[in-house]
């Protein structure tokens, strides 16, 4: 069964690049262009993994993960894809299922590899 990924970023071109890369690798991708939409889609679809930007209208990426974790009670592995990559500390993501923080600009190849790695780990668990 194809892995289902939720991609959240308010910059459509970036979301499209990520979605395209993941779809070409055989994954099912849903794109959300703001935090609230992402939250709703995640709650409804329970994706296998989330790739999200940090700064989005409605709800930030961190808030998104925090609320999903608190409210759903399950931990969806999450990759943060963000321009704030160098400023985030371990503190801000402690206790959250954030498996990697990738700084923009990013290499789509590396992003795909990170997603596959994170999914591999999730499956193993």
């Amino acid at each position, binding site marked *: 069964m194809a892995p289902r990924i939720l991609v959240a970023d308010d910059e459509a071109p970036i979301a499209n*690049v990520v979605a395209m890369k993941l779809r070409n690798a055989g994954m099912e991708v849903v794109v959300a262009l703001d935090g609230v939409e992402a939250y709703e889609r995640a709650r409804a679809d329970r994706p296998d993994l989330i790739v999200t930007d940090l700064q989005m209208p409605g709800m930030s990426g961190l808030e998104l993960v925090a609320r999903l974790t608190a409210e759903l009670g399950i931990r969806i592995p999450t990759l943060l894809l963000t321009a704030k990559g160098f400023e985030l500390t371990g503190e801000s993501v402690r206790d959250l299922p954030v498996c990697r923080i990738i700084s923009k600009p990013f290499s*789509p190849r590396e992003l795909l590899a990170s997603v596959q790695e994170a999914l591999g780990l999730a499956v193993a668990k």
Partner: protein
Amino acid sequence: MTVTELTARAPVDGEVLARLASETFQATGVRVAFFRPDGSALGAAPTAPNDAATARLVAEADLAGEFQVERRGGRFVAAWPVRRRGRTVLVATGEVEAVAGARPQALLAAVARSICAELDRGAARAESEASAEALAQSFEEISLLHGLGKVLRVTQPVHELLEHICTELRETIGTEAAAAWLPRVEGLGPEQVVAGRLPFDADLLPRLVAHVLDGLGPEQSVVIINHCQEDPFLAGLSIALERLVLVPLSLREGVSGALVAVNRSGVEFGSPDAKLVRSMTSSAAVFVENRRLYHDLHQLMLDLVRALVSSIDAKDPYTCGHSERVAIMSRDIARQLGLAEQDVEWAYLAGLVHDIGKIGTPEHILRKEGRLEPEERQVVQRHPGIGGRILEGITRLEPIRDAVVHHHERLDGSGYPDGLKGEAIPLLARIVGLADAFDAMTSNRPYRPMLPLEHVRREIERNVGTQFDVRVVDALSAIDMGRLMHQFAERTAAACTAPA
């Protein structure tokens, strides 16, 4: 793929058209078919009327550039062109039964609008995908350049850097191979790295580089050859060599190596590829020259130290070459002990300068042929401390100061100047101390000739635990003496005349 190509392609994707036709029929009862402007059918449309009348209608719609409809007996047939950028890409036809009370012309017009809209959406999606592809590629290139900045360190071996560059470059521009070649120059090379597989024997790479550089114009900084087979030399290398991008890597002597990307199916090499390769090459060139400069300065430092040290050694003909020998031996012992490369280097330097303090020893004592009086011995024993004070001023040699100060300590604490015991004696000092003693015993002295090797070994064994550390002694024993003596002969014979 360009946007124009994709947009031109999208409306004529057979699957899409078939799906559209089937959906439209199910929703509205209208039979839709698609034709090229020349009248030939597109996609599978078994129910489409494919007759002269339809062909004529198609041609009319194309010519008029707008929706055409006509009645044929009990049916209404319409045709409408789908245009992109002023050109007709295809003509669609729709056919529906004339039913009393219905409004077939209006229905056909609505279907036409709907189909055009759907095809437009498809084209927009294709364009968006093309943009995403282009953006992804740009991201990869940016990441490649940023990644290089992270990886450059002056202490990194050139080979490693070139491997990184070739591997990443190949993945980013999607070629069969990416390779680097540097000729032999002072302090470097030759270096050859290949990522992926070249379509010819890798040994031939230098010749390919030479050939391409030969044809380089004076202001030319990149070479793109998209049809290698048209060049007899390149064709001769391999019939599988199709295209390449080459950027010369210029070194200070005016000679050049190069970075080459070879073979990519699909898109020809163009300026975006060339600029990327050129950017990587520039970074590599700066790095390589910096590394050579570092190497040059390092060699200069060593040469200066050797010159200084041998001037001190030369005051006493019996010790000529002593410091160099102790340096070589200390280095070999350190290596034998498995120390890190940097520490092995320090051991060499420590051995080289260990007796530098003798510059403070009066010559008449240094050259004295007989046994030393107690006061004279005391003066000599000041040399480790003096050496340490001399080195205080040289920041670069700080890590070996302790080795110089303590190279006459003994494991049992009966050494000088501080009577350090056991592990308190720095490892480098223990190493140099052993090498020093070894060289002293195997050299001629005014009061005795050099001792035979076996005797020396036994003497050293006897003093393990009291004077010497057993691990350091074991390391010395494991060294190939023949090779060591050969090195001594090479390095010191020229400078010294052997004392009788």
